């Protein structure tokens, strides 16, 4: 594949790579983000056009058809998807990218097999890596998608001997790969290696629960980049290597940020199967006769309406109930009454990085009202009412005080320091981590039971009458 592509194509690739780097840079700042996305898109267009001019590319009609179909599906999906479904959308797109990279490697293998030339060791290693990473990204992303979409259970799926089975499959993969390095043109072993990669992708995501999804989605994002880069090694194309490496690095940064926000190592997210092991502890701890204070929407509205400052803490429950518009309306009504309204966003609230920010932006919540964890935590002591909507683990004081708790050490929003807290929740079930939440039993915490959307709508109606 060491063809000398015409200089023009290479120069265009260089321009496109620069546009990717500048575009990603601009995506990092709110004022320039939209322009950055546009620049990256132009870079992609240039790269595609340049590749079409390659003298190896002759199959114009079918390629045009493929591009057209892909564009149609992509455009429709991008305009139809609801903002609450964004984590699934990103997961799905990751999977497609991974699948494409794996397919490129498989197609190249088939091509080399048919040409009866010997497959070099370099090419062989690249192909195996590309099939493995691309395959894992593909099936892993689809499992993540299915979990987020509710097609399969969002909680960790575990089975007996899970780790030994995984280890065995991994060893199987390594044996197949090792064999292929010695005997490259063995098709059955190659297919077996591919199947094992796909299976490993499924088994890698299936034991990971919903609350850990921000980490998984970021990691899969990173992997989709690495898959593209390895495909670049397969076809020896710098454009693929550069763009893939950029995405791999950015995904890794996000993964690290998410892990830090949960005070967990990547290994414990991937192999810990949270929830499952913690449930037993929680059940034991909840044995005591603790009581909660339950109020109705009218009392809740009184507390909110007569407060001086209210901090709203949204969580995954708000996303599930699609309550973001009702929440914005509540915020507006409270501001009319002279209440100071702020929103506190935990970095891992929701199912992907920045999930809450996207939803509140969709509902037109003014940007200056959104506060990061570091920013808002010192302010809770001066807050009259903290309104928790469908969040649980991220406001659990046990993370600060109880060293035996599975979430001990995780940075939380210090809602318990506010003068009062109102918690909107569907029932008393534990959060994703399977841990009981002391916040609910505190003297100054009021519970409002029901779906976030209904309750917030009732609160809006009651506040209007104040």
């Amino acid at each position, binding site marked *: 594949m060491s063809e000398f592509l015409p200089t023009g194509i290479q120069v265009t690739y260089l321009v496109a790579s620069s546009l990717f780097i500048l575009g990603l840079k601009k995506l990092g700042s709110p004022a320039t983000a939209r322009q950055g996305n546009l620049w990256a898109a132009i870079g992609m267009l240039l790269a595609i056009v340049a590749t079409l001019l390659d003298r190896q590319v002759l199959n114009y009609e079918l390629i045009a058809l493929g591009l057209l179909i892909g564009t149609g*599906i992509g455009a429709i999906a991008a305009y139809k998807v609801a903002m609450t479904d964004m984590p699934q959308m990103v997961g799905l797109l990751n999977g497609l990218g991974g699948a494409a990279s794996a397919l490129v490697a498989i197609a190249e293998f088939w091509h080399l097999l048919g040409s009866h030339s010997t497959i070099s060791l370099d090419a062989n290693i690249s192909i195996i890596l590309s099939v493995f990473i691309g395959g894992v990204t593909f099936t892993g992303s689809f499992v993540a998608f299915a979990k987020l979409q509710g097609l399969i259970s969002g909680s960790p799926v575990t089975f007996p001997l899970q780790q030994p089975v995984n280890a065995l499959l991994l060893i199987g993969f390594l044996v197949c790969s090792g064999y292929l390095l010695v005997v490259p043109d063995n098709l059955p072993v190659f297919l077996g290696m591919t199947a094992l990669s796909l299976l490993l992708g499924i088994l890698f995501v299936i034991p990971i629960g919903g609350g850990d999804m921000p980490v998984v989605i970021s990691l899969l994002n990173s992997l989709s980049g690495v898959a593209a880069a390895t495909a670049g*090694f397969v076809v020896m194309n710098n454009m693929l290597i550069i763009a893939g490496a950029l995405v791999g690095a950015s995904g890794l*940064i996000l993964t690290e940020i998410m892990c830090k926000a949960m005070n967990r190592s990547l290994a414990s997210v991937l192999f810990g199967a949270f929830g499952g092991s913690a449930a037993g502890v929680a059940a034991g701890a909840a044995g005591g006769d603790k009581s909660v204070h339950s109020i109705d929407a009218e009392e809740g509205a009184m507390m909110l309406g007569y407060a001086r400052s209210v901090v709203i803490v949204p969580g995954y429950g708000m996303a599930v109930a699609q309550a973001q518009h009702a929440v914005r309306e509540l915020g507006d009504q409270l501001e009319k009454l002279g209440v100071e309204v702020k929103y506190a966003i935990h970095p891992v609230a929701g199912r992907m990085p920045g999930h809450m920010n996207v939803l509140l932006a969709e509902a037109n919540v003014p940007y200056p009202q959104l506060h990061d964890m570091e920013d808002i935590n010192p302010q809770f002591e001066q807050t009259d009412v903290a309104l928790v909507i469908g969040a649980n683990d991220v406001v659990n004081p046990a993370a600060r005080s109880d060293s035996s708790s599975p979430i001990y050490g995780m940075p939380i929003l210090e809602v318990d320091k506010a003068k009062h807290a109102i918690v909107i929740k569907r029932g008393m079930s534990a959060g994703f981590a399977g841990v009981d939440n002391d916040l609910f039993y505190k003297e100054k915490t009021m519970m409002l039971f029901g779906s976030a959307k209904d309750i917030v709508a009732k609160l809006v109606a009651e506040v209007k009458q104040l």
Partner: protein
Amino acid sequence: MNEALIAAFFVFVLASFTGFEVINKVPPTLHTPLMSGSNAVSGIAVIGALIVAGPRDTNLSVILGLIAVILATVNVVGGFLVTDRMLQMFKKKEVKV
């Protein structure tokens, strides 16, 4: 290892460092757009797909390449458009304030 492979490794490692430098310190508001935007960039696999789908034959290699072209194009187009849609919402709100 041949020279081309060494050169490719240089490109890979340097691009990774560039990625780390460029994307450090992104505010949480932009985490989702950054992810979906970079996701669209990873659809660059479309280029590899175009190359393997290039020959004027109908063999399995070309067919797999064409499937890869479709999947990667969905990734690229869907990723960039959905990112733009999100960022548009962010923009609208900033103007209002």
